[in-house]
């Protein structure tokens, strides 16, 4: 008998425009001591399964069909009181964001003890002992002292350990983990995955891990279930799914994951994904407006962009007395050069200062010290607005979050036209219009997109709009700040292909920022590694991946998840 079994689960979210079906017909079995991964892209319905098992669907979600068995007993349709005895006691759940999962006003002790006392028939003193044991088990040092602390006194990774302790403290049989490591840095992610694997082995619970990350799957799961738009497309052992998948969706999903082991020219075109861009009519860059670069001088030096001893501080303690202020050095003495026509990568974990560097080059932040040279001119020395704008126009930026990088109150046509009009790059409104249409077509959206508002587009499409806007000043230098980290893998592959094409076609110079090493390897010619605001290593990207020099780069490469290949 399986530990947890789901038969024909269908979950719907009724709305006035008809029901949205989150999962259609999900069947699933989980054995004790097993780790089952549920993988899929956003909107596949994977989180819905976990919420439906515990009857925690966000309103107005309902489960009109399906049965859920826990050790042979049906647990769907139980009363709230009966369900409460299952939650935490027999099925524990771990959420994605450790920063918001804990009650900020209670100590860890209060939260743990309350959970234990609610479910297990023990005294408060015994519950406290157990709570300390649990913290010890999840790897929190000095548990007897730390238990008195409040959540804000723990780091993100430590908080996720506390969350795990909370889910395990009433000794459940099943753990549901919903993207448990997505909000964490790679190195912490690896630790948490290790911990979860160890706990499953020790306690013999069954665990379901929900993730969009193939790396997590290959790292920890015994079996994998692949979901696509509410349907289960394939179930099998991790080896089988990653090595030799049957279903075309699984195949295309896996082929879209950037390979860490070698560089390939382009990502294979994924035919299963419906969002694929409209085939664009090709424009001849040599004659088209987009290709005209007469107003740029030919590069004066080998390097288009150079930064020298760049420094940026953020004030952390404010005071009217300068001596009492405290600063965080976000960027500390960083220097590098970007050759004309190359793609230069900047890699590091969160807080390493890589985005701050990008924002200083693009002029959003003003550096505290250091110089930025663009085409031989020192941008930090320029004072007149006009002089700055001359260079600003030549460098553009693409941002991480496709949902906040476009002004929701403007039509796409206006968004793309704004830079053209501001820099007076076209002679008439009619010309602006035709350029905008060509640009939108060129990035694979089609000219019909112009009349719509950003919210009518998906994440990948919005990122294409951002690219069109960036191209609208006819830049020579493009800064991409994690341009694909908010996108699903299949969309990521398409956007990266588009960027590669444009880079070649328009011979753009690019600064490409990412925390994702495989992506860096696929896109960049040279790479700089940053840590805690300092530059650790700069190398050709093939050299870095084959033969890293610094310890930190080696460490990062070790943590890089490798898919089990056939």
């Amino acid at each position, binding site marked *: 008998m399986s530990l947890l079994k789901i038969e024909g689960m269908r979950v719907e979210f009724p709305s006035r425009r008809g029901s949205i079906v989150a999962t259609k017909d999900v069947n699933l079995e989980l054995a004790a001591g097993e780790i089952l991964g549920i993988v899929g892209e956003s909107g596949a319905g994977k989180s819905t399964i976990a919420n439906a098992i*515990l009857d*925690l669907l966000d309103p107005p979600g309902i489960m009109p069909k399906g049965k859920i068995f826990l050790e042979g007993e049906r647990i769907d349709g139980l009363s*709230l009181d009966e369900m*409460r*005895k*299952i*939650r*935490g*006691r027999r099925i*524990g*759940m771990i*959420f994605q*964001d450790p920063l*918001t*999962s*804990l*009650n*900020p*006003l*209670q*100590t860890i002790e209060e939260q743990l003890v*309350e*959970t234990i006392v*609610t*479910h297990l028939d023990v005294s408060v003193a015994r519950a406290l002992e157990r709570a300390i044991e649990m913290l010890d088990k999840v790897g929190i040092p000095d548990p007897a002292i730390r238990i008195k602390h*409040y959540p*804000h006194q723990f780091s993100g990774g430590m908080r996720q350990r506390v*969350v795990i302790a*909370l*889910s395990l403290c*009433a000794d459940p049989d099943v753990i549901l983990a919903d993207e448990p490591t997505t909000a964490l840095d790679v190195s912490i992610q690896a630790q948490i995955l290790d911990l979860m694997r160890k706990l499953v082995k020790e306690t013999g619970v069954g665990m379901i891990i929900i993730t969009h990350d193939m790396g997590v799957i290959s790292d920890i799961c015994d079996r994998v279930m692949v979901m696509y738009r509410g349907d289960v497309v394939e179930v099998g052992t991790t080896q089988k799914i990653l090595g030799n998948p049957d279903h075309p969706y699984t195949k295309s999903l896996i082929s879209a994951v950037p390979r860490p082991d070698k560089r390939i020219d382009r990502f294979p075109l994924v035919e299963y994904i419906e969002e694929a861009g409209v085939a664009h009519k090709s424009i001849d860059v040599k004659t088209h407006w987009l290709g005209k670069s007469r107003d740029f001088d030919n590069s004066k030096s080998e390097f288009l962009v150079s930064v020298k001893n760049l420094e940026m501080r953020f004030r952390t303690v404010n005071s009217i007395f300068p001596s009492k202020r405290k600063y965080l050095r976000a960027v500390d003495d960083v220097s590098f050069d970007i050759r004309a026509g190359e793609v230069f990568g900047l890699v590091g974990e969160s807080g390493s200062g890589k985005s701050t560097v990008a924002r200083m080059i693009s002029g959003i932040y003003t550096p505290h010290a250091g110089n930025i040279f663009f085409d031989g001119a020192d941008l930090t020395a320029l004072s007149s607005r006009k002089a700055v704008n001359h260079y600003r126009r030549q460098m553009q930026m693409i941002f991480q979050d496709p949902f906040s990088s476009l002004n929701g109150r403007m039509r796409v046509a206006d968004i793309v036209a704004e830079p053209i009009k501001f820099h007076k790059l076209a002679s008439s409104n009619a010309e602006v219009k035709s350029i905008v249409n060509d640009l939108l077509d060129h990035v694979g959206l089609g000219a019909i997109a112009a009349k719509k508002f950003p919210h009518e587009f998906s994440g990948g499409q919005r990122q294409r709009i951002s690219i069109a806007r960036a191209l609208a000043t006819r830049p020579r230098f493009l800064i991409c700040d994690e341009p694909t980290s908010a996108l699903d893998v299949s969309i990521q592959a398409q956007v990266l292909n588009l960027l590669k094409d444009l880079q070649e076609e328009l011979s753009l110079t690019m600064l490409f920022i990412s925390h994702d090493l495989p992506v860096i390897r696929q896109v960049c010619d040279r790479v700089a590694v940053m840590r805690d605001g300092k530059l650790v290593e700069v190398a050709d990207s093939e050299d870095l991946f084959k033969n890293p020099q610094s310890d930190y780069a080696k460490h990062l490469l070790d943590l890089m998840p490798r898919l089990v290949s056939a």
Partner: protein
Amino acid sequence: MLTVALIAFALFQFVGDPISNLVGQDTSTEEREQLKQDLGLNDSIVVQFGRFVGNAVQGEFGRSYRLRKPVKELIAERFPATLELSLLSAFLALLIGIPMGVYTALNRNSWLSQGFMTLSLIGISLPTFLIGIFLILFFGVMLQWLPTFGRGDTVSIGWWTTGFLTVSGWKSLIMPAITLAIFQMTLIVRLIRAEMLEVLRSDYIKFARARGLKERSISFSHALKNTLVPVITIIGLQIGSLIAFAIITESVFQWPGMGLLFIQAIEEVDIPIMSAYLLLIAFVFVVINLVVDILYYSIDPRLRMD
């Protein structure tokens, strides 16, 4: 506090000519000058401001232009009436408002909640003075149950006069207190409800549910406590503003408090009373802010860091 003192002082300086307010049309220029000298109006502005602050700290605000009595006496006479009224109203507003807010947040769709919300909507739409007038019309004029003006019989304890110790005092207090409480109460209901709904949507509440904690514990020890953090400042301010809102109530019920004094002062441009009242209100707010800070500190561990 000092800012307010400055404003209050500026009032003295620039608004109106106190002399022409004090004396009649037929007073001679010499008499006016003499009066100016007596009142210290010929000194430099800085000196006058220093004297003003110094006096204010000792509770001296000069003499009322209109009533020809020291402001200190006038205020001391009126202060107990306003404070008793405000305290009872605050008590009513909190005692009824908080449970109602919590109930409507927890049972969003029940009939009772809908009823409460409708009531609160009517509550914020009813101007305070109209509530007072309607209460007077029903209970005072038509039913003749309760007195429609004044404080009733009061008992003096030292310089403090209280209406809490006599039946007629209580009877007189009921309608003004309800009138004053209703608006604040509806605000508190709506505020608590909105904030609590926000908290109930948070991840830690969902995680608490997923751990199978008891609903009662989730609602009260997890959700309500987190609701109080953002709400406490605004409630503090609301309670503080009761004293000022009492102006309206006092005027409707002819309640002999500071508000009535103030409104009469405005009509007559009686600056010493206006500025003294202003400073007193500012003082009340400073005290309330202090209490709110202490409450914050005891509720939110994140503030106890340094």
